[in-house]
């Protein structure tokens, strides 16, 4: 997130992942998300609809997602309607197993509470649920993500007199330590958003944590996936660096690697992100974000 488009929620949030793997195929499953024969949409890759769909596919098979509102909310809602009805959303406000009757306008929205399966204390949410290892995916937004997956949501420029004062950690530096993995969505794809090293490390990668010698090391794998307007970056292992795993339709590998603050490696199996189905876009526009709060 940048200072002018801050996280639309109470934590460092927004994000959307994607799966590049099942892009070939003629699946005819009744499960619409894998039904590649379905009519496709031509929404542009930088649109919220595109990113939310990519993120929804990323959630298939995941159980518990710790997220802010915005794209994660859209993605989870879409995922439940398409790829995986079992995805459970937990919020740092203490909501577990939300069943909102309307689209949530924030992580503390009353519609998340009414009808939820549990409304825990924040101590139970951060202590038992998060630190206890029950979160499979944490969605985070960021101003910057660097080569090894460190996240900056604090300041751009000098720490003491910053050029831009960003929202800070919120729950992000708690989440990255204990969520099994982290998915980040960036709204920009350039050396500013993807520098070799962040200006300030709010939420560290395992590789950076490891340098803090003698410390009890966090359980989480850190950032595994970064979704940008141009493609998808993934880290192949716990201490590795981000690699280009997919480019969105119409984007070349050279475009995606050229505008990054380091020499971005390209995976041998680099793929093209599958387009959203027309049905995905319809669901997002006509059934999920009917008031166009996040789809602008």
């Amino acid at each position, binding site marked *: 997130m940048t200072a*002018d488009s*801050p*996280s*639309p*929620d*109470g*934590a460092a949030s927004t994000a959307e992942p994607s799966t590049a793997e099942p892009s070939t195929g003629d699946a005819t499953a009744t499960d619409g998300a894998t039904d590649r024969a379905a009519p496709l949409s031509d929404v542009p890759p930088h649109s919220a609809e595109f990113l939310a769909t990519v993120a929804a596919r990323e959630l298939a098979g995941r159980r518990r997602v710790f997220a802010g*509102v915005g794209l994660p909310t859209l993605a989870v809602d879409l995922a439940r309607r398409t790829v995986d009805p079992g995805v459970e959303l937990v919020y740092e*406000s*203490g909501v577990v197993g939300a069943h909102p009757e309307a689209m949530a*306008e*924030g*992580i*503390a*929205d*009353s519609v998340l*509470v*009414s*009808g939820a399966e549990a*409304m825990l*204390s*924040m*101590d139970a949410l*951060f*202590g038992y649920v*998060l*630190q206890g290892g029950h979160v499979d995916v944490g969605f985070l937004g960021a101003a910057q993500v660097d080569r090894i997956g*460190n996240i900056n949501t*604090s300041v751009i420029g000098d*720490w003491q*007199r910053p*050029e*831009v*004062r*960003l*929202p*800070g*950690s*919120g*729950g*992000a*530096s*708690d989440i990255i*330590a204990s969520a099994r993995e982290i998915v980040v969505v960036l709204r920009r794809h350039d050396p500013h958003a993807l520098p070799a090293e962040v200006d*300030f*490390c709010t*939420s*560290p*990668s*395992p590789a*950076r*944590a*490891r*340098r*803090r010698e*003698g*410390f*009890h*090391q*966090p359980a989480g794998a850190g950032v595994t996936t970064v979704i940008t307007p141009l493609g998808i970056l993934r880290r192949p292992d716990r201490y590795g660096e981000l690699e280009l795993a997919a480019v969105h339709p119409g984007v070349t590998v050279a475009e995606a690697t050229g505008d990054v603050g380091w020499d971005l490696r390209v995976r041998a199996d680099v793929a093209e992100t599958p387009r959203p189905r027309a049905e995905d876009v319809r669901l997002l526009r006509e059934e999920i974000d009917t008031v166009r709060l996040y789809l602008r």
Partner: protein
Amino acid sequence: MSGSKVTTLREAVTEHVRDGMTVALEGFGHLIPFAAGHEIIRQRRRDLTVCRMTPDILTDQLLVAGCVSRLVASFFASGSAGSLYEIRRRVEHHDPAPLETEEYSHYGMYCRYEAGAKRLPFQPLLSYVGSDLPELNPRIRAVESPYGEGKVYVVPPLNPDVTVVHAQRADASGNTQLWGITGAQAPAAYAASAVIVTVEEVVAPEVVRADPNRTLIPAHAVDAVVEVPGGAHPSYAQGCYDRDSAFYREWTPISRDREAALAWIDEWIHGTADHAAYLAELGQARWEGLRVAPAPSGSVSYGRRKE
């Protein structure tokens, strides 16, 4: 059970909130004690250290009004409607004056209240290993585990001079019940030297005592109880009224223009005698739009021993 602590907001703030104090105003998106914060503005308190996990519009307003010199927090933006521009002006441009900030993650801030409430010298948590936050904030320190798993970060207790919370209901002696998102209210209250509770409704002790598990802040931790219906506006009170999302959107352009923000404070806070007058200014129609339909919890039984 003690005697009645019911008072007016004016008296509660006059008695318990003094210039230079450390004041926690908690409520995580929900039950934000706006009415009490506005009364602090009306009484022109100065040089406060404000503690709030998510500063929200309330802190931006207190800053505009000149009440605050220091901020202890874990997220420096509004709940869901954008930047808090007064905070950004202070931090980025020292305009009109620098703002000292002390920064944690959400759980770090929560653990500070926990340690404060429990009088622990520190509370460990699993965050920050590899983060620059401990470099920025020397109060985040490390402790070696005596069981051999290495070091963990710890935070020190946070003990405000006064904590202010808003809740759905309390009895006159201060037994306070809240539901929905309960935030950091209970530890922030127990951590403080004095506690002001504003509530949607002061209820009979029998109402509270029919459901003792809902009491999160017992009377012995409370110094003043004030009935302030609508006291969380523009945030919300679960089951009572919804968040005024339009107001949150409106604040962004106001906050962006310091003159407009000052004018807002003059008109809406100094220009109203109290929260009832503020709500009257807001108008009945707007308030009706925030009403929610009932969604009953259902009743459970606590049982009575038969003779």
